């Protein structure tokens, strides 16, 4: 199990290739350029296709074509580019085209900045595009998860015929960390629905999201909702660290969970009862464990690099606003370990404020 140092973005790209991804369509944008650049070098080596699209809009529609035709396909971008893909994402869900979409998020709104951010949580989990839809959303917590979750993402995308999003950020993408790479997988899942040319089939295949008559559209949506319900039941992932004996559970994902982890490890040395609940899937959200922890009397601190987005899902899970406190940093800056440490201290029983 050789460890190699890789940037998160490159680890993700190599992870995708090892998971059998052979089609990449994307458009340059900082801070995710390492992904297309890596793919440009690497895809020809494995007989895959790297194509730089003329825009994010075009890229997501190439993904729609490639995924609809049965290819294992990836696109990546960062916040403004992901906004441009919203129509396409809605189409992908509506037509049940599997694919993986990576958002290496940066600060917004608008042009914003190249600094890391977690302010695209709503967009990823509630649906930035139109219509009732859900993406399965993974939030890696380190470079190793960049590798592991992208592999999982392709499998899940195809199992559910639904796009899967990896929501990460500038820090996770730019940071180098040691990773262990899995072997190259050859995948050729059966996709009887894919448009390949009829090839003797009696009925042509169709990739489509049109329901001209209201009842047709309703039927499509009933089917989608049933699928989302299955995903919600089966796909929740999270990491719980020291939550059993904790008075306070800090909920954080991705980069902010790392800062929180640093703060908590200091606090633990000081014998404070603080735990970390790190959602790995942002949708479906780990509602149940949070509800259970709430029932067990814990209080919660949500730390995000945003004005407060995931905190809504925490409140919806805990169903008791009074138990939830929020600490956010606005796009552009990352909370320091000290800030988080201080905030937790202020919330602990012995911390004074209570």
């Amino acid at each position, binding site marked *: 199990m050789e*460890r190699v*140092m890789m940037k998160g973005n490159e680890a993700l790209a190599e992870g995708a290739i090892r998971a059998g991804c052979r089609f990449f369509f994307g458009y340059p944008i*900082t*801070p995710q350029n390492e992904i297309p650049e890596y793919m440009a070098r690497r895809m020809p080596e494995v007989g895959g296709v790297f194509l730089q699209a003329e825009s994010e809009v075009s890229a997501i529609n190439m993904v729609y074509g490639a995924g609809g035709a049965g290819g294992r396909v990836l696109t990546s971008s960062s916040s403004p580019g992901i906004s441009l893909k919203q129509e396409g994402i809605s189409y992908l869900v509506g037509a049940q085209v599997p694919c993986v979409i990576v958002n290496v998020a940066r600060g917004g709104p608008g042009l914003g*900045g*190249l*600094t890391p951010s977690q302010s695209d949580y709503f967009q990823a989990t509630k649906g930035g595009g139109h219509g009732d839809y859900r993406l399965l959303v993974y939030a890696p917590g*380190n470079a190793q998860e960049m590798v592991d979750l992208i592999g999982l993402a392709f499998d899940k995308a195809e199992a559910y015929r639904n796009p899967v999003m990896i929501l990460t950020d500038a*820090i996770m993408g*730019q*940071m*180098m*960390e*040691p990773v262990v790479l899995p072997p190259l997988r050859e995948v050729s899942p059966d996709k009887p629905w894919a448009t390949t040319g009829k090839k003797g089939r009696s009925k042509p295949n169709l990739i489509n999201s049109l329901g001209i008559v209201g009842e047709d559209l309703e039927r499509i949506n009933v089917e989608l909702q049933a699928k989302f319900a299955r995903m919600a039941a089966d796909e929740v992932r999270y990491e719980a660290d020291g939550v059993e004996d904790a008075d306070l559970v800090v909920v954080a994902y991705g*980069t902010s969970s*790392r*800062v*929180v*982890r*640093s*703060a908590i*490890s200091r606090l633990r040395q000081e014998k404070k009862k603080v735990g970390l609940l790190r959602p790995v899937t942002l949708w479906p959200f780990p509602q149940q464990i949070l509800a259970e922890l709430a029932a067990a009397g814990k209080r919660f601190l949500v730390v995000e690099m945003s004005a407060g987005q995931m905190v809504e899902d925490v409140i919806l899970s805990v169903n008791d606003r009074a138990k939830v406190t929020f600490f956010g940093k606005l796009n552009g800056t*990352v909370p*320091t*370990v*000290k800030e988080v440490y201080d905030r937790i201290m202020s919330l602990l029983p012995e911390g004074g404020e209570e």
Partner: protein
Amino acid sequence: MTHEIICAGFGGQGVMLIGQLLAYGGMLEGKEVTWFPSYGPEMRGGTANCSVVISDQPVGSPIVAEPDGLIAMNGPSLTRFKTAVKPGGVIVYNSSLVTAVPALPGVKICAVPANELARELGNDKISNMVVLGAFLGLTKAVAVSSIETALQQVLPARRHHLIPLNSAALRKGFSLVTE
């Protein structure tokens, strides 16, 4: 044991590389490590810096706000980061480009005339390695030999002929502070 290090300088001075070498060396010694660059428009012309964490524990935040080690290759970098260094920490700076000598309570400060020393070795471009060597001598963050192994992996093959030179620079810096 955790080392939290910032390497900073002008773009082109090779500060990103020495940061990566530190992280890579740490990994080769079985440590948990992270390397994180500052990037974006700053890269262009202006200053560049990166954070390195080397630890026995899984690394939390990869951003170093309060380093215990600072490598400063030029004046602006030293000015920007020196006050963040923790008590007990170490600053190694390139005295070829920095005139003012700072004094900070509880922080060990070491001036390395890196450009001159590099020139003595015949190549201006390895001043970063001289400073890194001195930093390793003072902090023992990783062994010089680990950095040498890391060089093999970090440098592209077409640059491997430069490894002996880099090695010499590292050792020169190291001996400067240890002998």
